Every structure is written in structure tokens, then in C-alpha cells.
């Protein structure tokens, strides 16, 4: 053990000893003073502390808010259309619960202070009153109806079907990273099967090469490129354990479950560059944070979303090479962008059987 830790433990022990001696002494004093007197004194102190706690607590809430509010997501506009709904819901809920919070906490500590023990007062025998009880059953019930109503209205909007023209992106979680896939021009993903996964031959998603739709699929781990103002439907998969696609700036989240495909959809509102200006942070990135404990590298499982304009996106996509061509470079067509020819389907099974 190092000297500092011994020192710390010694200080701790000493602190205990002193506190204990004081406490012990106060017990003797109370016996000398008489139990009733001692009780009344400590009761007064505690009653006073109730008020102190209430006041300092309210100041503390304001102070904490002042220190940290600007570090949350709330001062900045949400980066997605769904996020705006969630923000509205958030402010409705904060307003309603805030009112209840302040009323009940103030009553609690104020009553505690006001009705502290006194020789003169007799407690008021008041076992029940149906009117009051009805009142505080119905008011919360009505308030909750409002919250449930708004909540479900937004929930259905957010979890409903994606727009027909939405662009498609697939994200697959693995220990510990993300793989993105674009169906590309045909807008249809090639079939995949997990037993085909073959990291050595760079088929990390297990694509079935016999399926021609897979031939133009782009697979990348660099970043998920999305287009500003274009609805996107994200198809979510996991290769091993449960992960969660957490997109804090879009206010979105959905688990990636092995064997159970999930989806989410939203429309990004600001490009990454625009968001850098809004947040005044030149290093800003839309980060994908894994939100479901997935193993010992969980805390480092990061992805990046790049929101770009339509033209930037087309440019980016043009630079990407289909996964199929990475695996079978001999099939690269002479004219870029042309559909793969029939010969490809013949070579594919050979590659699979390796």
C-alpha cells in the first residue's frame, strides 16, 4: 500500500474518531440536561435545517441548471424531424412535472418546519377527507391523460412506416464496431446469411454472392452517409450480441438484436457542417454510441454519421467500390456503373466453397 493511501485512511479514521467522540459527548450532555430539554433542542435544529435544505436546494437546482443546461442537447435544435417531436414532448413533460415537483417539495419542507414539535400545539386528528382524496386522484389522472395522449401521438408518428421514397441504409453491430451497407442503384439489398460470414475473405456481413442484388451493395465501416432533408430508413442488425444504435443528436435509438431485424426512420435536418456552426464546435461529429452493454469494449464502440447534401452524397457514392468487386476484382466491368455480367454468378460459388 502506498503512503498516500495509508495517509488517507488515517485521516478517515481520525475523522470517524472525532465525530464519534462528539456524538458520545452529546449523549452525556443530553442526559445531564434532561431528555426532554435535549430533545426539544435537537428538534429545533433539525426543523431549522429543513428550511435551510429547502432554500439551499432550490438555489442548488438553479445553479446546477446554469452550469450544465448548455452542455445538454436541449439548447440546440434537434438534428432530425422526429427529434423535434421528442423535444416538444420533453418540454411539455418538464413543465408539468416541474410544477408538481416544486409544489410538493416546498410543501414537504415547509410543513416540516412549520409543524415541528411544540409544547403548545396539539396535533390535529384528521384521518381522512374524501373530497381531498378525490381531488388528488382526478387531477393526476387528467394530467396523465394529456401526457399519454401527446406521447402516443408522437410515438406512432415516429415508429410508423417509413415514407416510400426513403433512402435505405443498413447498419450491423458487432463487437466492437459498426458496418454500414447501401443497396445502391437497384435499391434492393442482396441476400445474406450469417454462416457465410468470412472475415478472411472480407465478407463480414455474409452476403450471398449468388444473389445478383448483392453485386452492387456497398459495404463500409468508415461512416454512415445520410442526405440532408431526405428521409432515411435504417435497417438494423447485429452479428453477435445485442447492441443499440444510439443517435443522441437525432434523439433516436433502436437496439440491434441478433436474429431479429429492427428498423428506424427519420429525416436529417442539418448537415454535419451546419451542425458545427450551430453548436459552435469545429470538431462536431454525429456520433453513433452503442447503448446496450455488449462486452468489454462497449465504451469504445463508436460510429460516425456524416450528413451531407444530395450532390456530395452522389459524389461520395461514386467513389465507393461495391463489396462484390473487392472480393472478385477480376469481375470489374470495363465500363464503371454497368451491371455485372452473367459470368460473375458462375465464379461466386467457387469462392464460397473455399
Amino acid at each position, binding site marked *: 500500500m502506498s503512503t498516500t493511501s495509508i495517509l488517507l485512511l488515517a485521516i478517515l479514521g481520525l475523522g*470517524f474518531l472525532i465525530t464519534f467522540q462528539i456524538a458520545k459527548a452529546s*449523549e452525556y450532555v443530553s442526559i445531564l440536561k434532561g431528555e426532554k430539554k435535549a430533545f426539544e433542542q435537537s428538534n429545533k435544529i433539525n426543523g431549522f435545517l429543513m428550511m435551510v435544505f429547502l432554500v439551499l436546494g432550490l438555489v442548488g437546482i438553479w445553479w446546477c441548471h446554469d452550469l450544465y443546461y448548455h452542455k445538454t442537447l436541449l439548447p440546440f435544435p434537434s438534428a432530425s424531424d422526429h427529434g423535434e417531436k*421528442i423535444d416538444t414532448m420533453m418540454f411539455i413533460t418538464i413543465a408539468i412535472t416541474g410544477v408538481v415537483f416544486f409544489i*410538493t417539495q416546498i410543501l414537504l419542507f415547509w410543513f416540516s418546519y412549520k409543524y415541528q414539535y411544540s409544547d403548545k400545539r396539539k396535533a390535529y*386528528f384528521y384521518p381522512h377527507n374524501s373530497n381531498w*382524496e378525490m381531488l388528488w386522484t382526478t387531477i*393526476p389522472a387528467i394530467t396523465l391523460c394529456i401526457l399519454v395522449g401527446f406521447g402516443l401521438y408522437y410515438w406512432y408518428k415516429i415508429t410508423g412506416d417509413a415514407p416510400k421514397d426513403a433512402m435505405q441504409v443498413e447498419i450491423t453491430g458487432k463487437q466492437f464496431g459498426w458496418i454500414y451497407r447501401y443497396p445502391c442503384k437497384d435499391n434492393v439489398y442482396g441476400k445474406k446469411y450469417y454462416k457465410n460470414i468470412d472475415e478472411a475473405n472480407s465478407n463480414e456481413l455474409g452476403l450471398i454472392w449468388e444473389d445478383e442484388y448483392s453485386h452492387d451493395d456497398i459495404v463500409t465501416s468508415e461512416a454512415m452517409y445520410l442526405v440532408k432533408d431526405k428521409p432515411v430508413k435504417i435497417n438494423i442488425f447485429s452479428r453477435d450480441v445485442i447492441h443499440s444504435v444510439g443517435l*443522441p443528436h437525432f434523439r433516436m435509438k433502436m437496439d440491434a438484436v441478433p436474429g431479429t431485424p429492427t428498423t428506424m426512420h427519420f429525416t436529417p435536418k442539418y448537415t454535419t457542417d451546419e451542425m458545427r456552426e450551430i453548436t459552435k464546435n469545429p470538431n462536431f461529429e454525429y456520433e453513433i454510441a452503442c447503448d446496450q452493454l455488449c462486452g*468489454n469494449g*462497449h465504451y469504445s464502440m463508436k460510429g460516425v454519421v456524416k450528413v451531407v447534401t444530395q450532390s456530395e452524397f452522389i459524389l461520395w457514392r461514386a467513389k465507393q467500390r461495391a463489396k462484390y468487386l473487392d472480393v472478385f476484382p477480376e469481375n470489374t466491368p470495363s465500363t464503371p456503373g454497368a451491371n455485372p455480367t452473367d459470368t460473375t454468378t458462375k465464379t461466386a460459388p467457387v469462392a464460397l466453397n473455399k
Partner: protein
Amino acid sequence: MHGHPEVITTHESHHDEHHVHHHKETFITKYIFSQDHKMIARQFLITGMLWAIIGGLMSVLFRLQLAYPDESFPILEDILGRWAKGGKITPEAYYALVTMHGTIMVFFVLTGGLSGTFANFLIPLQVGARDMASPFLNMLSYWFFVLASVVMISSFFVQSGPSQGGWTAYPPLSALGDASPGSKAGMDLWLTSMALFVVSQLLGGLNYVSTILNLRTKGMAMTRLPLTIWALFFTAVLGILSFPVLLSGFILLLFDRNAGTSFYLSDIYLSSTQQALPNEGGSAILYQHLFWFLGHPEVYIVILPAMGIVSEVMSVNSRKPIFGYMAMVGSLFAITTLAFLVWAHHMFVSGMNPFLGSVFVLLTLLIAIPSAIKVFNWLTTIWRGNLRFTNGMLFSLGFVSIFISGGLTGIFVGNSTLDIQLHDTYFVIAHFHIVMGVAGFFGMFAGIYHWFPKMFGRYMNNTLGYIHFWVTLIGSNLIFWPMHYEGLAGMPRRYLDYSNWQSFNMFQGLNTFISIVTIVVFAVQLMFVFNFFYSIFKGRKVMTRNPWSSTTLEWTTPIRPGHGNWPGEIPEVHRWAYDYSKDGRDFIPQTEEVREDEAKH
């Protein structure tokens, strides 16, 4: 009188001579394999406290990592050995610590320690019974708890470490040893320990229910029961109906781990072994349903006894009846019923059907209604009372404050729309630590301070108690209040280092602050533990039978009751438990007959 030779000589103690049970007691039958519910309660309490120290220490250790992710602390290597080589906690150790902290606190401390202690102690004493319906099963319940504890401790010492998959142990992570070292032998031990714990809970719970239903003394109608008993009754019902479902989930997980079944496993390729697993067709979400079918009632298993204790302690020390007794019972019943119908609100973003989610939003937010009734009734109870700030009363008032704070954030996370953003962030951490953890502990402390004189015939030191209360109340707010802001920034839970994250690294200063407060609060809890054990042997002796001037039956027993509780006949009950300040009298014990001219209520 056998067993307790140091009976205090007061005017009342001569009653002790007429003891009904004259059986020979040895050290072993009295202190170890005791069938006396009061001794079993003390055993549960002390075991729970030892677990709380371990679980609390774990939180201090991982908070050190969160406070100073770049620094190394040689003391950590002293404690954790190769899990903290060079004084830096490894990810394995970090995840093992958070997993064990959760498991220990939720199950061993706030379930075993809280309802185990107070159900055992209070049920026979307050309903007027000599002991539990089956003292032997009651003893077994405690020893299964000990067995579960031993198995859990043993998992700390296996080569691959204890379970590291979180206290919820979601498969496939918890099912596959190749996905995480904690899912090797440590996980089997975790599951075994939890299975033993479920057995302990069921034996205890069946006993509590049958005692309350069948062994009430003459005149003790259900509507005359103190609210503690009602709360403990509903707690036991919750446990009996939901723990078996958890057990079934665990057994399927054991099969998946060891027998090659595919209940939860499908489409898995592991990078660590570069192999695809043969399992197909299982559903990982099925486990979550089974887990949360207990997991959610579990939080009420924690909070209901605390609510019961607080209602009782608050009424006694306000010198007023609890306001709206029937509404309090009704809201306990409503919470119990709803507890079974809300489990899937933990799964809004798990991939479950969104329509199913919406049903659970409605049912979840309904719980706010009985909770609101309880809060307003507590407020009305202290209104125009004459409050004595005993330590028990202070912790009861603190409980209400904490319960309001944590309960209101439940309205955020219970709403699926907001849960999309808040799920698995620090907002959730703040919410459940406040409403279940801190509030549960406050209820437990209130109970310990209030019934300590009955348990040990001595008082705890008041001044240490006041320090304990104020530091804990202020400290827990300082720890958990700012966490809401981290959650609103989207900061995910279960990360041991945020420095690589552009979106979350601005909270490092706050994390350091929270950790320092955690250490102070933990030190004060150790002081409480010291006060507890010191007072058992050296505390001020209790000189009167009824030190708090309380109406309930436990204070009609001798100061140090023997096995059987009442030396003579069990007293008969004539009224409810809350006749305080009625008709100009400070209090009227339950055993006193109702006079003709008494005011009706």
C-alpha cells in the same frame, strides 16, 4: 427466563417471568439456526448490511475510474490484484464491478436486507402472533439466502472473473463465454446464486402471506393492520407471483449456455473465434420479457416495504393518524396490480412491436396516480401535526422528498416517446437510483432507527444519526441530480471512459465531482454501520416499553421479548393502528377497547 439474562429491571419487566416457552436454547439454536422470527430478522439485516458495504465499496471503486480515467491508483491493485494492474481498472473489472454492484444492491440488500428484515421482524409482532406460520421454513429462507451469498462471493474468485454482463444479464452476451470472459464460469455461478435466492424469497414470501392471513390476533381485522403489514403483504404477493418467472428465464439461459439449446440464440457469428454458431430461431427479446416480468415488480418489492415503514414512522412521529388509510391501502393494491402489467416499458427500443409499447405506456403512467395519492396523503399527514424529528422521522421525510424527485422522472422514461432519447443514458441511472436505490435505503434507515430499540433493547446514537441523515440527503442529491443533465446530453451508461467521445467528454469535471461526493457519502454510511454495531452493545438502554408512544402491538411486548413475543396471552385488538391525538389523548393503543363516547371516523 432463558436466553436473555440482561433483562432490564423496570416496573414492567416482571411480566417476563411468566414466559410460556420453556425450551432449552443453546448458542446454536438461538443465534445461528434460530427459528425465532426476530433473530432471523436480525440475521437478514446484518447479512444485508455486510452486502451493502461490499456493494457500496464497489461503486466507490468504479466511480474512481469514472472520476480519473487517466490516472492510476496503486490502492486499486492492492484491492483488485490483477484486475487493476498498475492501479488502473481493466474493462473486465469495471464491468464486473457494475454488474455485481447492481445485483448485490437490488437483490441482496434492498430485497433480502429490506423486506427480509422487516417482514420477519414486524409481521408477527404487529399482527399479534407468536411467530411465523412456519418458523422452520423461515429459517430455511434465511439459510438459502446465505447459500446464495456464498455462491455469489465464490464467483469473485474464479479465473475468468464474475459475471460482467450487467445485472440484467441479457443474452446472447451472458450466454456466450467467447463474447465476454464474465460469461464463462462466473455466469453459471451468478445464475446458481440467483436461483437459490429465488428459493429463499419464495419460502419467505409464502410464510409472510400465510402469517398475515391466518395468524392475526383476536380483533385484528385486515382493516386494522398497520400500513407496514399491508405493504409487506403486497410485497410478498409480488415476489411469489413474479420470482418464478425470473427463475424460468434463468433456467432457459442455463440450457442455452450448457445444453446447446437455442431459446435466446440465433444468427450469431463471433469475431473472437471467427466462427458462426449453429443456433438458429431463438429470440433474445424473449429473455427480456421473462427478466422484466420480475425485474419491474422487483422495484416495487423494494419500494413497497419502504412506503409501509415510512407511513408508520411518519404517523407515529407526527402524532397524527396517517391521512386516508383506506386510500393508502388502495394505492398499495393498485401499485401491486399495475406492477405486473408494465414490464415491457424497459423494452421500448428493444425491437418489440411499437403497438405493444403503446399499451405499456398507458399502464406505466397509470402508476403515477396511486403514487401521487400516497405523496399527497403523506403531506397531509404532517400538515398540522406535531413533528418529532427522530432519526426515523427524518429519514421518512427524506424518503418522501427523494420519492417525489425520482417518481417524477419516471413520467419521462415511462413515456415511450421520451424513452427513445433517454433509454440507457444517465437519465435512467439517475431515475432508478433515486426512486429505488436512495428511496429504498431511506425507508430501510427509517425502519432501522425506529425499531432498533425493539430489536436490541437499546437506542442508536442520535447525533451520529443526524449527521448520517443530513449528509446522505444532501449527498445523494448532489450525486444524482446532475446526472439528469448528463442523460439529457445522451451520455450512455456503462462506459468506463468518455474521453474519446466528442459528444460526451464535456462532463469529465462533473464526473469527478460526483465521485468525490460518492466517497464522502459512503464514508458516512460506514459511520452508520459503526453506530449500529456499537449501539447493539453500548447504546443507551431502553427503559420503557413504548419509547415512541406508539399504538401498535410490538410495543406491548417486554423490552426484550423472548421467543413467543408475549409472556402471557396475546393481547386482543379493538381498534385501528392510528388513534393519535384523538379526543384530547396523545395516543390510544390498539389494545384499548373503544369507549361509547369516542369520536367516530
